[in-house]
Each structure stands twice: as C-alpha cells, then as structure tokens.
C-alpha cells in the first residue's frame, strides 16, 4: 500500500487495550496497516471515564472526555476512532452533551481553559468497525483476503454500547455490519438472536452470579447455532465471554466452551497475517488452534 493512498485517522486505543486486552490494539493496528489506514494515536490521551465515572460525577466525567476531544481537534483531523464500544459511546455521548447542553458545556469549556485547552465541537467519534465496513468497504476488504475462511461459522457479538442508545451506526437491537464483514472474509455468519444482549459488563466482577447468567445465555445461544467461534468488537465483552467459561458452564449447566476473538483477529487471519501480528497467543480460549485448523 502506498503512503499517498493512506487514509489518516486519529486513534484512541482506550485503557483496557494497553495491557489487559492488548491483542485488540495489536490486531487493529495490523489490519489497519494492510488496509492502508494510518491510525495516528492521540497523544497523551486520558481515560474516557467509561460507564463508571459517569455514575459518580457528571461534570468531572465530561471533563475527561472533553480533554480527549480537545486533543483530537488540535490534530486538525476531523475523526477520532476507537475500537472499544465503551470509549465509542462515552466520547460520542459527551460530544453530544457538549453540543446540546449550553450551560453545562460552558462550565466544561471553562475547565478546559484552566488547562490551556479549547474545544469547538468539530470532532466526530467513530468506531473502527464503522471505518472498515463503511470507509474501506466490501471491494477493498475482499481484495485483501488471502485465504477465505470458507466453512467457518461465526457468531457476531456486538454487545450494547455500539448500537445503543443512538443507533447511529446500525440497528439498536439487531445490528448486521459485523455479520456482513464476516461474509466478506469468506466466513459464514450464523443467525444469532442474542448478538446485542448485555453480557453484564462490570458485573462479571462485582456481581458474578448475575454476570454468569447473562454471559451464559450468550455463549449457549452461539453454540446452539453451531458457531465455531464468537467474534466481538468490545474488549470488556470479549473478556467476559472468554475468561469465565468454566464457571459460567457450571452456573447454567451447559458446556460453554467456545473460542472468542476480536473481529480484527478474524480479519487478520483471512488476510494471511501471522499469529504474532494478531496476538493470538494472548487468548484464554483456543483461538490459535482453531484458526490454524481452519485457514
């Protein structure tokens, strides 16, 4: 891919992708490189605040996201891209609140000013999945497929915060873009009615009985549809679905073992990238063995 054809985006990895879910960050950058997307990491970004900070203090939470938006605006690029559903919704939501609530917005601007920053509201927050499907598009994605994943049955799990509450990118309850992408890669998307049901989020840690029940329904549904694996576009969902399969299985009395990977890892495999470029060894489920067998 030539440099002149590269599309440049400001990239916001998000906290969880730095270490715990670094496989998502690594695989995102690897497939971006293949597609000629230059993901320029936002310099000195801070936590978006996620759902947690907003539950304690709204104004402080707004300042967190506003600082990131201000930094992004300063780059001169209009779009801020993240692959995390939580960051995507939080940054997007704050961006809207700043535009829609003048009084609150004024206070946030004063706070930014105290730190020597400004924000004019020009940044658009987007998800990496949106970039791949809508900016890059079918033709170009297909062109990079080195080894189609034929006969590979994939359950696409979207989680909550990609589509809800705004429904900007896809349907709020039955999104399809990841299924479409899986199809372009040569895989077979399975019908998956629980694709946008809640995995429990933080509750897998704080209220494990509730978390296991919710995650269990999702894993069971994917298996019942005959999926070989689940792909996701959210690091917290991925962790919840992959890390507790033994305990979840015991809780719902069903064998819940199934490989769970990021959609970017599936893309990378279809593109012929190496295991290291996709950090497949990071996985707690047998992702590498599955992909080696299938590709």
């Amino acid at each position, binding site marked *: 891919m030539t440099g002149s054809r590269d599309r440049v985006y400001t990239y916001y990895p998000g*906290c*969880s992708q*730095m*270490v*715990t*879910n670094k496989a998502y960050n690594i695989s995102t950058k690897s497939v971006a490189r293949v597609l000629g997307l230059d993901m320029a990491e936002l310099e*000195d*970004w*801070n*936590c978006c*605040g*996620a*759902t*947690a*900070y*907003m*539950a*304690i*203090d*709204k*104004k*402080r939470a*707004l*300042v*967190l996201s506003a*600082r990131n938006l201000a930094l992004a605006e300063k780059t001169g690029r209009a779009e801020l891209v993240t692959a995390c559903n939580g960051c995507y919704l939080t940054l997007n939501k704050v961006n809207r609140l700043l535009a*829609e*609530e003048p009084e609150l917005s004024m*206070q*946030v601007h*004063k*706070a930014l*000013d*105290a*730190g*020597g*920053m400004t924000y004019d509201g020009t940044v658009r927050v987007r998800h990496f999945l949106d970039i791949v499907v809508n900016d890059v598009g079918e033709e170009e994605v297909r062109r990079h497929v080195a080894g189609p994943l034929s006969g590979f049955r994939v359950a696409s799990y979207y989680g*909550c*915060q990609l589509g*809800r*509450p705004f*429904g900007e990118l896809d349907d*709020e*309850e039955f999104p399809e873009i990841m299924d479409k992408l899986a199809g372009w890669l040569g895989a077979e998307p399975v019908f998956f009615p629980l694709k946008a*049901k*809640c995995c*429990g*989020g*933080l*509750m897998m*840690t*704080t*209220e494990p*009985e*509730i978390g296991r029940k*919710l995650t269990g329904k999702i894993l069971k549904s994917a298996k019942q549809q005959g999926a070989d694996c689940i792909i996701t576009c959210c690091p917290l969902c991925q962790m919840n679905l992959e*890390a507790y399969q033994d305990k979840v299985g015991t809780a719902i009395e069903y064998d819940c073992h199934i490989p769970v990977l990021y959609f970017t890892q599936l893309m990378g495999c279809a593109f012929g990238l190496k295991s290291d470029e996709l950090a497949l*060894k*990071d996985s*707690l489920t047998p992702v590498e063995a599955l992909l080696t067998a299938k590709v």
Partner: protein
Amino acid sequence: MATTKDLDSVFLESVCSIPDGDKIYECIQCGTCSASCPTSDAMDYSPREILAALRAGMLDRVLKSNTVWRCASCYSCAVRCPAGIPFTDVMYELKRLGTQYGLYPKRTPNAVMVKAFMESVDRHGRTHEPELVQKYYLRTNPLKFLSQVSFGLRLLVRGRMAVLAHNIKGVGNLRKMMAAIEENEAT
C-alpha cells in the same frame, strides 16, 4: 439537615434536569423497561417501579435497595420506551444522587467498584486495573481476592497484567481542569 421529604423533591428536580428527564411524567407504567432489562429479576424494585416511586416521592426507599446499582447501562430500556424516557440516564442520575448523599447499602459491589475506578483515573489519568481490582476486593470482601489469584496468573503469563501504572504526561493539567470544574460548581 434536609428531611427525607425534602430530598425526594431534590431528587425529582435533579432527574428532571437531565436531557429529556422531564419525560418521566409521560410514563404510562407499561413495563416495557422492566421486561427489557437483563437484570430486573435481580433488582428489589424493577425499572417500572422506580419510575412510579420517583413520581410518588418514595425514592429514598429505592436508593437504599440494591436496584440502582444493578443497572448495567445496556440502554435496552431507553431504546424501547414508548414515552421516550432516557431511563438509563435516569439510573445514572440516581447513582450520582445515591453517591452524593450516601444513600446506598454499605459495600454495594458496583458502587465500590466505580469509586475505585474514579480514584484510579484521578491518580493516573488512565485506569490501572490491578490497583482497581485490589482496592475493590479490599473494600468488599478481601477473602474473595484470593479466588482471583489464579485468574491473575493466567493473565500475567500472557503479558496481560500491567505491573506498573502508566501516568499520562498531562496528569497535572487534567487535575487543574478537574479543580476548575469543582470550583465552578461551588460558585
């Protein structure tokens, strides 16, 4: 000191002040929110009941139950509500009020977790997960921390556990902004 009755009107006013918050008056008690909620079966009061309690000025009881902190922020209720009530955001407002007035049962797991999360972000500018998890278990059930050790090791061998916290360069700058917004609030 404010009486419970006074607080109830403060709560009602706060909830109405969020964008579209005054739509709570258009609730027809149809129960779509409760039926859509993935965790309502684990709540003392369902989302529909919370709306009724809010309007009836009985919120104190709701906040002292387990209900509000079992909202996972999935927005299923919000996208389905026929009256357009942004119920997930109502829950956020109730969480904030509960925190502000100390009106939630002690050691409520999610309340402890979000507090630890906030402290981590305030300190480093980003979350430092091991610190966050450690604080959470120490403040809720230290014995449970032991049950997490083997999980922690599985992450550690894969290089998925941060040993040292990363502080953003602008952490001082961020603190200045936070101080400014607090000051603003006070005036």
